[in-house]
């Protein structure tokens, strides 16, 4: 097998499978009673954490490539970003069921239009009322267009330039996710601050490189300003 093929047929599926590890583990632990005595809270928190971790990992790919010169890591960026979205959606589903559905009254029985309406109202109201939910929802919604346009077809349709510009929304999502985490903890802000620091480094590196680039462009620019 060529190296190309090894990457494509061995490494990529392996990373893909590893990324499902947290879900497999949570499912197994949930079914066998290996979570805490408040498993619904654990499922909410763990899926949220993994969404944030995958978001950070996917945002680390470009700096990693730049620093190490390993061009091949770029192949994993889209997939890792999609996993961030995947765990984000799971997180939202767990919340919708464990936090919202479980708190409803069921005047017309559980499987009814009333229930569906009440559930939608309960989720909507919560997003509107609680700032940490609002910003979490924002983080997820920002990932939605990125997930949709992650296919080769969409890249072709948008073109590399526009696609890359659109996918800068991931930076905003990363910031929103960190704020969501910071706002929801009760007193121990160490873990949210750690993720905030990671995010700051990942985004700061991009700002730094952009500045360097701009500076070097300015230096090499001709003395007479060109017309745009």
């Amino acid at each position, binding site marked *: 097998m060529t190296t190309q093929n090894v990457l494509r047929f061995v490494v990529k599926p392996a990373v893909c499978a590893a990324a499902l590890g947290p879900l497999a583990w949570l499912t197994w632990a949930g079914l066998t009673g290996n979570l805490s005595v408040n498993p619904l809270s654990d499922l909410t928190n763990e899926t949220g954490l993994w969404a944030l971790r995958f978001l950070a990992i996917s945002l680390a790919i470009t700096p990693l490539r730049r620093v190490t010169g390993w*061009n091949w890591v770029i192949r994993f960026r889209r997939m890792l970003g999609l996993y961030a979205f995947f765990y984000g959606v799971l997180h939202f589903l767990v919340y919708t069921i464990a936090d919202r559905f479980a708190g409803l009254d069921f005047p017309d029985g559980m499987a009814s239009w009333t229930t569906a309406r009440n559930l939608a109202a309960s989720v909507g109201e919560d997003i509107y009322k609680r700032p940490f939910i609002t910003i979490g929802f924002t983080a997820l919604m920002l990932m939605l267009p990125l997930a949709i346009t992650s296919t080769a077809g969409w890249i072709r349709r948008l073109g590399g330039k526009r696609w890359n510009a659109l996918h800068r929304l991931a930076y905003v999502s990363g910031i929103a996710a960190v704020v969501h985490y910071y706002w929801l903890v009760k007193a121990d802000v*160490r873990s949210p601050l750690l993720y905030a620091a990671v995010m700051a480094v990942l985004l700061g590196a991009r700002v730094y490189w952009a500045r360097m680039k701009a500076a070097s462009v300015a230096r090499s620019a001709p003395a007479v300003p060109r017309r745009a």
Partner: protein
Amino acid sequence: MLIKKPADIPYSEVTDRKLYVNRRDFIRAAAGVAAAGAGVVSISETLFAAGQPAPHGRKLDGVKKSPLSLAPEQEKTNTWDQITSYNNYYEFGTDKDSPSLVANKLKTEPWSVQVEGECAKRGNYSLDDILKGVALEERIYRHRCVEAWSMVIPWVGFPLSELIKKAEPTAKAKFVEFTTLVDYGTMPGVRQPVLRWPYVEGLRLDEAMHPLAIMAVGLYGEVLPKQNGAPLRLVVPWKYGFKGAKSIVRIRFTERQPMNSWQESAPQEYGFYSNVNPNVDHPRWTQASERRIGEFFKRKTLMFNGYADQVQGLYAGLDLKRNY
């Protein structure tokens, strides 16, 4: 990408084809994947340690029934494992399972309590002194955490009023302040400035004298597990759980309202009273409902945690929205 001007990015980069990769890069890739895999495994291992129930301890003798206790048929009590593996006791760490994993190192014997302030019988009392002559009772109480989960817990203890009477508070005493142990050797959490240590809680003297307020020394007829606040903790069932100071080393009678740790840390979120109140939300979540540990559907939270008939007289004329 801010790094390159977008126009510079060749099409191949975003379609992730045609990348030239040499052998050495591949080996490094494989190593990276292995490291990531190891990371997942190690994270799982920490998670696996979750929630160690306390080993069963010494049985307490002569525990009486009390009319102030919920009857077991009224509400199902939570299990020993549930009560002893899911705890907020920040001195041992902020995760729910931290106390059950590390509190076993705490030394609860010998134990003494400093009684101070506006009272006649100031002094340092051993736990034996405190328990001399008191009749232990079982009190099955609802326990409502400010985080909107709840349990039903069969405490063993004695009325706080008995201890207070023994201390003979002076006419000036209007409040009682409780202080939790700080021990750097056995409490890893106190090295983190999450709250200001030691942990302090307080009650108005009339609240403290209420027959429902107890000092607990046991659980399920056994000596209180360390993660639950051994050897001596406060239980005030109509207030949020954090009012129940654990592993108490000091009791002080004061003229002024004490500043409790959570109020100090976030005054707009946690007040002095912290009575369970479904009509006053926490700024970040609702207090109208709660999850009983072990149940899926949420329950409606009851005013004063279901003890309104007994305790509402204490708050006649007090604006409970303001005095949360």
